[in-house]
């Protein structure tokens, strides 16, 4: 029987030619319709980037080593990549509205991963975000601080150095994903080749579980930062009140270490709230500080001390202890770090003690 080759050839030809026609159409569109030519991105009225338009703003920024926080990797689901687009951003998109407050919309805040570059744009990015960099690092040390908090020390690779202010945070990138999580830096800003983080195991939390269970000494890790508006006001000479429980210890520890390293003279009081004795850590070290520096006072408080804790210190919520302990004094400033309800309650007490609301700095998490 004679084989009819046409039954093989025709389908292939048809497929190929239709696919080619469509590909041609798209290539044409890509070249002539979707191309926006060279666009200029002006940042803070100074720095200029010249880019080939058509993509999302975030990708150009990353290409140019400007690391805007972006926990979802540009999918428009985390709302972290906010920045001000003063000009050329086009209309606000439905994908952005859920993440922006009315205030932010009025101040032309946009999500960098959603704004497409089609013409020259003008951006305002906070200086400290511009300072953020990406760091390769190796885990040098992991230790248990309490039953659910671990301390990680990252040694930055090569000769890279991180310049941060006491109180700021970095993002830890979970390998093989585009997920990031933010953790406050616990080390002293003077230590520039290492970053120390305190991570509490959040039940069901992707990143904390990964860090607690899978990370080992010697593993490589990628950090970006530093970020954050919460940091020590170095030029202020006011007395300082620090409040923070659990992992809130991290930025506060950095602040206190830095104050001592720079021989600060003002009075420093640190309120540390925990539930039971097993949630306390660094107590001895802080008590040692207390002996050495006359101007430092450490006030730990347990809200529900267990019998076997034999606790003789303060009992109650940290806010109650603050209420009892603090004196009316206008010339103080406060650094708070912890869960939102605690911070809100603490702010109420601090203002009632005469502290100006503008002198209260906090980081809610």
């Amino acid at each position, binding site marked *: 029987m004679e084989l009819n080759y046409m039954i093989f050839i025709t*389908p292939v030809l048809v497929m190929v030619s239709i696919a080619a026609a469509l590909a041609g159409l798209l290539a044409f569109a890509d070249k002539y319709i979707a191309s926006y030519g060279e666009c200029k991105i002006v940042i803070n009225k100074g720095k200029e980037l010249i880019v080939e338009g058509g993509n999302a703003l975030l990708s150009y920024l990353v290409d140019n080593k400007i690391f805007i926080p972006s926990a979802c990797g540009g999918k428009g689901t985390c709302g972290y990549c906010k920045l001000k687009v003063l000009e050329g951003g086009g209309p606000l998109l439905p994908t952005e509205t859920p993440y922006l407050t009315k205030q932010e919309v009025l101040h032309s805040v946009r999500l960098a991963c959603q704004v497409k570059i089609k013409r020259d744009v003008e951006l305002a990015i906070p200086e400290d975000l511009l300072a953020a960099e990406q760091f390769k690092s190796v885990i040098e040390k992991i230790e248990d601080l309490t039953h659910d908090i671990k301390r990680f020390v990252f040694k930055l690779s090569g000769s890279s150095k991180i310049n941060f202010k006491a109180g700021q945070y970095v993002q830890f990138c979970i390998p093989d994903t585009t997920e990031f999580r933010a953790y406050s830096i616990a080390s002293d800003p003077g230590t520039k080749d290492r970053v120390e983080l305190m991570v509490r195991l959040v039940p069901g939390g992707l990143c904390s579980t990964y860090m607690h269970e899978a990370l080992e000494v010697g593993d490589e890790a990628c950090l970006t930062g530093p970020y954050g508006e919460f940091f020590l006001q170095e030029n202020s000479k006011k007395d300082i009140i620090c409040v923070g429980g659990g992992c809130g210890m991290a930025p506060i520890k950095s602040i206190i270490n830095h104050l001592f390293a720079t021989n600060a003279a003002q009075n420093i009081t640190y309120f540390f709230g925990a539930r039971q004795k097993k949630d306390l850590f660094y107590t001895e070290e802080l008590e040692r500080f207390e002996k050495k520096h006359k101007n430092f006072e450490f006030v730990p408080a347990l809200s529900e001390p267990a019998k076997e804790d034999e606790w003789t210190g303060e009992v109650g919520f940290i806010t109650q202890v603050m209420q009892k302990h603090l004196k009316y004094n206008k010339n103080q400033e406060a650094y708070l770090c912890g869960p939102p309800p605690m911070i809100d309650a603490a702010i109420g007490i601090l203002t009632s003690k005469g502290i100006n609301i503008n002198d209260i700095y906090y980081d809610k998490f």
Partner: protein
Amino acid sequence: MNLFVIFFATLFTHNIALTYFLGMCPFISVSRSIKTALGMGLAVVFVMTVTAAINWPIYYKILVPLEVEFLYYVLFIITIAALVQFVEMVTERFLPVLQVTLGVFLPLITVNCAILGVSLFMVLRKYSYLESVVFAFGSGVGWTIAIIAMSGIRSKLLFADIPEALKGPGITMIIASIMALAFMGFAGMVGI
């Protein structure tokens, strides 16, 4: 066949979402607010109509004469994907207003089974060109009606006390099936 009958049937008796349960993914995930549901619906109407209008000649003018009809699954998908891309680029460039309302939804529906479903039904039911376009347009409108109804119900649901295990997609699926039962009431009014 009467064009009006086809249009009516696609809205009620043969609703693509509630009778055939096609296009469920956006139906469940984008039906949270009426505004986004409407945007999604319009995008579906648009893409369905355009793809059917292009797929019809591809089938009857190219595949049938060359006797390679079996290629239609693959080819329909390719044309749909390419077309959506193309339309997206065009709206983005020339119709920025439309882009704001429709644009974000376009890429979402490239791989929507309802879109492919409409093109396949058009072949199965041997519609003429005009019938195909009306059928596709009607199916899109029918899908839009369904998703808007769903988002209306879901906006009331915000205040309801729903068992933990059913929150989100769970309750939405149950509502969709009750709506489908209700739409069965239309059955038999017209046939296609």
